[in-house]
């Protein structure tokens, strides 16, 4: 796939984040353009999830700046931040569905304060459910869903506000290879359908192969390699090569 060189939607500059003495991110800089699908690949504990959480200010950084859609997210007040977050979809590792709510209520949750009429909300719910192929699950509870279904519903929920940017935290972790491939393809479909900019955090090389325009490899808090899937696959660097074995 070819990356679309367009307006900058995400810009991170000299990001640093530590937990006590543990330096998780050390001087991370990254620019992502509109329509790109960037995959950040890294081993467990390399700081991938911390990086993605800093992008939406779920975690504060020690140093550096994060600019999303032109706004420095660490200088926004709560109201401005919430407005910006509504333009960002986030699929969590375990899907993070609200256990006490049905699938329909989970999907409606981001729309609660939108003031949209009931018919419009129902239409949006059915639209995103159709996008992930789970129209029949609308009245189920999260506990009644399989791992793959949970991920699909989580994806549907994060898409319901039609975000400009999608962040995926380990979207295929814990799934069997077939379901993982289905989810990867679904990410690609969603990206095409809604023309979102996507950032995918993963250690699943198949997911990266299917979805990535550009890949970055994170190790010990710094990016150690960057390029297209095929470029990195040919790399002779031992660490980079180890992901493709």
């Amino acid at each position, binding site marked *: 796939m070819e990356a679309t060189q367009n307006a900058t939607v995400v810009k991170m500059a000299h990001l640093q984040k530590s937990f006590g003495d543990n330096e998780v991110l050390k001087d991370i800089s990254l620019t992502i353009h509109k329509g790109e699908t960037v995959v950040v690949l890294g081993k467990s504990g390399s700081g991938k999830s911390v990086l993605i*959480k800093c992008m939406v200010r*779920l975690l504060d950084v020690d140093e550096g700046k994060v600019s999303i859609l032109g706004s420095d997210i660490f200088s926004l007040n709560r109201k401005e931040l919430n407005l910006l977050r*509504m333009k960002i979809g986030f699929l969590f*590792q375990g899907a*993070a569905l*609200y*256990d006490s709510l049905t699938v329909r209520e989970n999907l409606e*949750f981001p729309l*609660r304060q939108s003031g949209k009429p009931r018919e419009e909300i129902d239409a949006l719910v059915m639209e995103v459910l159709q996008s992930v192929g789970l129209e029949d699950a609308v009245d189920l509870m999260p506990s009644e869903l399989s791992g793959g279904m949970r991920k699909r519903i989580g994806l549907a929920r994060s898409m319901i506000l039609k975000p400009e940017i999608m962040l995926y935290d380990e979207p295929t972790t814990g799934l069997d290879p077939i379901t993982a491939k289905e989810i990867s393809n679904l990410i690609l479909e969603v990206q095409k359908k809604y023309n979102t900019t996507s950032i995918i955090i993963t250690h699943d090389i198949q997911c990266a192969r299917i979805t990535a325009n550009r890949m970055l490899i994170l190790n010990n808090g710094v990016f150690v390699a960057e390029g297209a899937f095929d470029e990195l696959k040919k790399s002779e660097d031992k660490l980079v090569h180890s992901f493709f074995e």
Partner: protein
Amino acid sequence: MKAFFTEVTSLTFFTGRFFKELFQPPYEFNELVKQAYLIGNKSFYLVAITGFIMGLVLTIQSAPTLSQFGAESWLPAMVAVSIIREIGPVITALICAGKVGSGIGAELASMKVTEQIDAMEVSGANPFKYLVVTRVVAATLMIPVLVIFSDAISLGGAFMGVNITGDVSFSLFFSQVVEAVDFADVFPAFIKTFFFGFIIGLVACYKGYHSNKGTEGVGAAANAAVVMASLLVFIIDMIAVQFTNLLINY
């Protein structure tokens, strides 16, 4: 000691944030009604059974002592005052600290562990308002209602207890209760139940919301919520009694 003061400071900030968020729109009325229903409905049978047993046992245990002084006829009055002033509110609050407090503590902690609270935050919602404010307000409003039910059912138990050893009609029992209990018994006891409800909801939410250490933290949060809320119920009760006595004597 440092940990204690850190905890107190953190709880104070949490309380401050609660009052700040309480009065700011948007208001989560649907969630508040849902939580009030859950707290009231799920605790009702437990509170009813314990209330009934409490009234029955208190009456049976008190009867021999009163009969030694030839004061058996005072039994309904004594039991009613004990239940309404002290035993009903405190026992109900302790039961709710166990049932409601552990439930809220574990629920919020598990939401934290599974990133559900983070998911709310990134969707542009305010999880504190949706999860904490609604639960604390619901507990503050519902514990007094449960105490009223508990007191009434306890008096039913007391009526049965009186009739195990003697023969007292319901109208006589009821008139003795009404005669013995006055405004100074009912009003302060009722007011303190709002504080019990508030502290149970607040502590449970605080422990759940600030849970960490993964799944281990869920159990720890539920446990800490019950222990801390129960202790604070006793402390509030002690302060309320002193305050009431001061007011009455003044």
